[in-house]
């Protein structure tokens, strides 16, 4: 089971021939090579190219050097294995701990900057959970972007999930208030609340999110049970600022990383997981709902190297 899953994961990531090719090249390149300054610089370069960031990459390579010295490692291939272990160790901090299942409706608030794939992620999650037999309700809380409501409705149809909406331009908190009331009345098990994309630096828009969160608590006292921040894997160092400011404003409980099916590695996640200790709930590796996978530190580390 676990193995089959790992295979599917790897298939997703190896979609690109370049990806695979560069890994093979690297392995071929280092075969028989010994630990030297040049090799360490190459590893640092690989980390930076994966968006790990110059500082974190430097720290990791320093740790690697220290560990190699302690364990008396000389061969390049062994060195890579140690590096892999370091990455896995850091990333393992991002594995979600199994928590108690809250009483229905479980309310999930989905936030993020513009264009990261909030609505698409909601659609995929809805499809998955409906297929598993849950009653899912979608709240069309993005009342700002043109046709965002229509986009969510189409996903609602595909997933066979109910959608609660107001008109475009309506108060998002009011939509979500109604959605939660409806979820209680109809006995929905999960509510996925969409919100408009917003840059984390826009204070008034972050205030709006706080209000939405407060309103949720008025209908379901324990809500929201999750605040999921969606991150785009193609984003560079700015993702740190996104996590920091969204977290400060509304208390993020978990992350979803989208668009890992391209050539971007999403290495910034190393820095984020290390700094914020936030669990990574899902990673998106393709178009179909099945391509939303649980986070696996080993597979993620492999794809970075």
């Amino acid at each position, binding site marked *: 089971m676990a193995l089959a899953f790992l295979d599917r994961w790897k298939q997703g990531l190896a979609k690109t021939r370049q990806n695979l090719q560069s890994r093979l090249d690297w392995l071929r390149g280092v075969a028989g090579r010994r630990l030297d300054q040049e090799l360490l610089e190459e590893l640092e370069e690989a980390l930076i*190219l994966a968006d790990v960031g110059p500082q974190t990459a430097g720290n990791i390579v320093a740790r690697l050097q220290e560990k190699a010295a302690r364990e008396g490692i000389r061969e390049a291939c062994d060195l890579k294995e140690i590096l892999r272990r370091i990455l896995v160790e850091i990333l393992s901090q991002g594995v979600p701990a199994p928590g108690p299942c809250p009483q229905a409706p479980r309310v999930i608030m989905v936030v993020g900057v513009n264009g990261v794939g909030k609505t698409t992620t909601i659609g995929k999650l809805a499809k998955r959970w409906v297929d598993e037999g849950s009653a899912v309700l979608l709240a069309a809380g993005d009342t700002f972007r*043109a046709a965002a409501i229509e986009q969510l409705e189409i*996903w609602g149809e595909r997933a066979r999930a109910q959608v609660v909406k107001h008109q475009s331009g309506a108060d998002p908190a009011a939509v979500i208030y109604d959605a939660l009331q409806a979820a209680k009345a109809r006995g929905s098990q999960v509510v996925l609340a969409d919100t408009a994309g917003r840059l984390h630096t826009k204070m008034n828009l972050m205030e709006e999110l706080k209000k939405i969160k407060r309103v949720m608590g008025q209908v379901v006292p324990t809500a929201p049970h999750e605040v999921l921040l969606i991150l785009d894997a193609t984003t560079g*160092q700015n993702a740190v600022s996104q996590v920091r400011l969204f977290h400060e404003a509304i208390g993020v409980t978990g992350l979803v990383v989208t668009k890992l099916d*391209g050539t*971007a590695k999403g290495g910034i996640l190393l820095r984020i997981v290390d700094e914020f200790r936030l669990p990574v709930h899902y990673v998106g590796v393709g178009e179909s709902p099945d391509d939303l996978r649980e986070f696996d530190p080993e597979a993620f580390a492999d794809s970075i190297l």
Partner: protein
Amino acid sequence: MFEALTGRLEGIFQKLRGRGLLTEENIREGLREVRLALLEADVHFTVVKQFVERVRERAVGQEVLKSLTPGQQVVKIVHEELIGLLGVNHVPLAFAQQPPTLIFLVGLQGSGKTTTAGKLALWCREKGRSPLLVAADVQRPAAAAQLATLGEQLKVPVLTPKPGAKPVEIAREGLSRARKQAHDVVLVDTAGRLHIDPDLMAELKEMAAALRPHEVLLVADAMTGQDAVNSATAFHGGVGLTGIILTKMDGDARGGAALSIRAVTGQAIKFIGVGEKLDRLEAFHPERIASRILGMGDVLSLVEKAQQAVELENAERLARRIREDKFTLDDFRLQLQQVKRMGSLEQIMEMIPGFKKLKGVQPDERELVKVQAIIDSMTAEERRDIAVINSSRKRRIAMGSGTQAHDVNRLLKQFTETKRLMRQISRAGPQGLGKMFPGLRGS
């Protein structure tokens, strides 16, 4: 981070202040900072390497100019090289001699193509052209509906596809409709796609080959990391880009992707997106962005922005009132509203040289809202002459604005202080005043 680069270099070069030549030795540490700052800003690894090498070559052996510190001199070189890399001049959109001009917007999912299509339509119309928007994104649910809504807001016609139509057919229909209805610009919004998706890239190639667009603009997210190079290279190789639009520049991204994309495609960055509203599209000016990147302030664009927002009439009136010492809270409130219209306070402060050096002066938009509420809770008489505000009036104002009496006190004190300052500046002549309110230039 980028903002601090100038400061950090200053620190490093303090030791060699004002003397001698720049040598390999004495700039090594500084160049390391430059490298780090650029990588931190998401400039691609290889691009950074080449860039730092070029700066080193230029810097070594240079004599430090009398008027500069070594740190400033290196920053000057870095700045010039940045501009060189970003492209020296602004490159406008190329309109066809024989209209209609056909423009494709291409890029990854979520980069902002549809919003940018709307913004470009508005921009074209303001230039006196007659644009037609074409919704050729048949992938994303409700993408056509989104463009149709934007078109409605802008009163720009939108061609939405019949069910099942192929993108190339949709674009072709757009062209023929433009000819019939005398539109001189056709803006085609294409589906977001991964640069490694063979089918969708082939589709784009087919579209470009069949219709020969005058402009193929890559819409790229300013927050993109190292991968910007891969996607830009693939789009350029696939369809032949003619320009770049960088979106989401209104956040706190350093925008290093601009450098990377520019370096690998050689194409000009033509516009930047700086807000969600449809008029938030600006022409790209390399020298300004390079300056902003290095924290040197962006005085030029601030002046321009201010000129747009501040109606000259108000400005003149204000200047007169300051000269005659009649500046009241009413004027103060008007000034606040104008500041707000110009954009976020933070954005404006970023563009004023020296402002960033005032550490601890955090522009707080909440404070502005409070100030406005307090002034709004005053009577006309109180706004005209704050001398009449006694403690019972203060209590009433505080209650009306949802603030505390000490907030009101503080505002009144600040206002008196500002007024005093203005009097001084206005005595110092129009130049001093112009510095405070760029919009007043020439009044």
